[in-house]
């Protein structure tokens, strides 16, 4: 039996500023290289929201892009919440990470409501947090990448971060946390994209999706020589 997964890519047109497409490509290839068929379903504002998704990805956008998708995202808040709460593995980066939280407060004090799946709040900061970043997660080990955001995200008490910042700013540049973990969902500021150089994250998402669909999430190992080489080289770059 050929196993197959449907990967829902949220708003690829507006929310794909920093190579987010690379995350989806990584999921697709790492499925294919294991003989698993991966169907990428792009969801744009106004489309019929698919009820079935085995894995969800959403990226970051420019301010203008975010304003285009905000209303549509609200319309689908319920559907997304039930998928995430039901354990559908989900990765949200930067802009959609923020909008999966309660709200984004702009410089002018305007409140842009999120969909509140994650118990986090984001406030526009004075300076952009930009540069190479290295974090450590008890679950996934070292995570490396690049961040570029002005929003500062704060987690409610008791909400689990994705990782501790080793070098860089992370959620807000203050409390040493990066990203959020909830059920099988990961929210993060790592773009660049995050999955190719951190294949453990990619395999976590694929494994959880297979487990939910087929009751068996064990993945055969792949040759990750290039992934590990790029990971090491990234970890060594100055901020």
């Amino acid at each position: 039996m050929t196993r197959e997964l449907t990967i829902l890519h949220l708003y690829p047109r507006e929310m794909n500023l920093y190579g987010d497409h690379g995350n989806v490509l990584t999921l697709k290839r790492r499925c294919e290289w294991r003989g698993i068929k991966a169907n990428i379903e792009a969801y744009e504002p106004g489309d019929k929201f698919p009820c079935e998704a085995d894995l969800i990805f959403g990226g970051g956008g420019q301010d203008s892009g975010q304003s285009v998708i905000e209303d549509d995202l609200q319309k689908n808040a319920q559907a997304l919440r039930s998928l995430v709460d039901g354990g559908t593995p989900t990765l949200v980066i930067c802009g959609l990470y923020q909008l999966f939280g309660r709200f984004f407060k702009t410089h002018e004090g305007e409140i842009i409501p999120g969909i509140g799946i994650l118990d986090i709040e984001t406030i526009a900061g004075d300076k952009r947090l930009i540069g190479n970043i290295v974090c450590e997660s008890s679950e996934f080990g070292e995570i490396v990448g690049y961040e570029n955001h002005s929003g500062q995200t704060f987690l409610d008490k008791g909400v689990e971060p994705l990782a501790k910042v080793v070098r860089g700013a992370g959620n807000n540049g203050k409390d040493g946390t990066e990203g959020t973990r909830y059920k099988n969902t990961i929210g993060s500021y790592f773009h660049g994209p995050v999955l190719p150089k951190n294949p453990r994250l990619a395999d976590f998402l694929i494994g959880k999706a297979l487990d939910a669909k087929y009751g068996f999430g064990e993945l055969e190992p792949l040759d990750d020589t290039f992934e590990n080489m790029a990971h090491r080289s990234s970890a060594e770059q100055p901020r």
Partner: protein
Amino acid sequence: MGLTDIQIYKQNRCQVIYNSRMPKKSSVVIGKLVRRIARLRGGGSALPGLVVEKIDKGFISDCLNRLPLGVAVVSGTNGKTTTTKIVVELLESQGLKVFTNRTGSNFMRGVIAALIESVDLNGRLDADIAVLELDEAHAVKFVQAVAPRYCLLLNVMRDQLDRFGEIDHTARLLADVVDATTGTVVVNREDRRLTALKADSKIIYFGLSAGLIGEFPEDDELLDQNTEKQPSGLPADVILSQIHGDTAEFIIDGRKASAPLSLKGSYNIFNSAAALALVRQILPDAETDSLICGLADIQSAFGRGESFVVNGQSLELFLVKNPSGFQLALNSFGSDGHDVMIAINDNYADGRDMSWLWNVDFSGLRSVQMVSGIRGADMALRLKYDEVPVDNPVEPDLAAAAQKFYGLSDRPKRIFATYTAMLDIRKALKGRSIL
């Protein structure tokens, strides 16, 4: 036969009344002195610019405001260097003396350094017009000091987001440049972010025909190049209508004109349409035939598809800086019949953020023979996910990689490199007397 603008202008050249002030002599002398010392020490070309910028804020405007035909600024994400080179050479072919920042140091300090080199000891610049290449951020600073008479805006693409933050922000920077322009603004009508800019001054467009527009994907379409595109309906003074082999056909003011070009690659040829549109504004009476003739001989700029033949083996160099530029280079110059090397650095001048590599579609490459640079590992990984084989181990050292690559086979070769990687590769190949 009536006199053309150029002839009238040349007759009057000596009578031009200079009503702006001369640059301070002390700044000129100090600048030239610093330049000499810096050169003796084998140092950088920007130092005299830095010193004069500090001691004399008015230097740049004092020098440039005196030019009889004013200043033309060329800005945008891709094609500035090539387009500026074409504009300068076209104007020179029409008999003008042109001041430009030829070194490609497209920021204020670079312009000041170039001025110090060119002015005489009295601070006089022997030129009719200045044509300056400025990146979006420096163009904004520049127009605060000197209001350009012309500006030419090529495109707004994802580039150096670690510096500029967002593409929309880059477009806003260009809006300031448009506002400061006193004469004519020349704009690529096929770039939606540019045509959205409002201008009080006169706007002239250049563009593409329906047949060619598909070859120029906008940023958001790089990974989905099948989308049907139509040219903008705005009236264009110069349209690039067809490319057949080496010959390009333009529609200029509604009339067809074609010429064999030395420039290669559809994007370089589109730059020449941009240059023609600007030059036609500066010299409205220049004859189309003579401009087209002038265009035929213009060679590619540094690293923009420059080609060399060494021991009967051809080597082409492509500078890649952002996803759209890389994609256009790959679309025009792929791996067919060639060995390919890709070298990626992440120094400040290259852009620190590697995410842009994931916005380029590499799947058209059959294989890549060599991958190098500080971020060579990132590049190799990117190719893996487009299932493009990399034939040799990643060699981060550029000199070693270039040397190895050159000795691989006697097939013609293409090297795609980011800015600082390109500098190192050229140095290595020169050291080995290959270039």
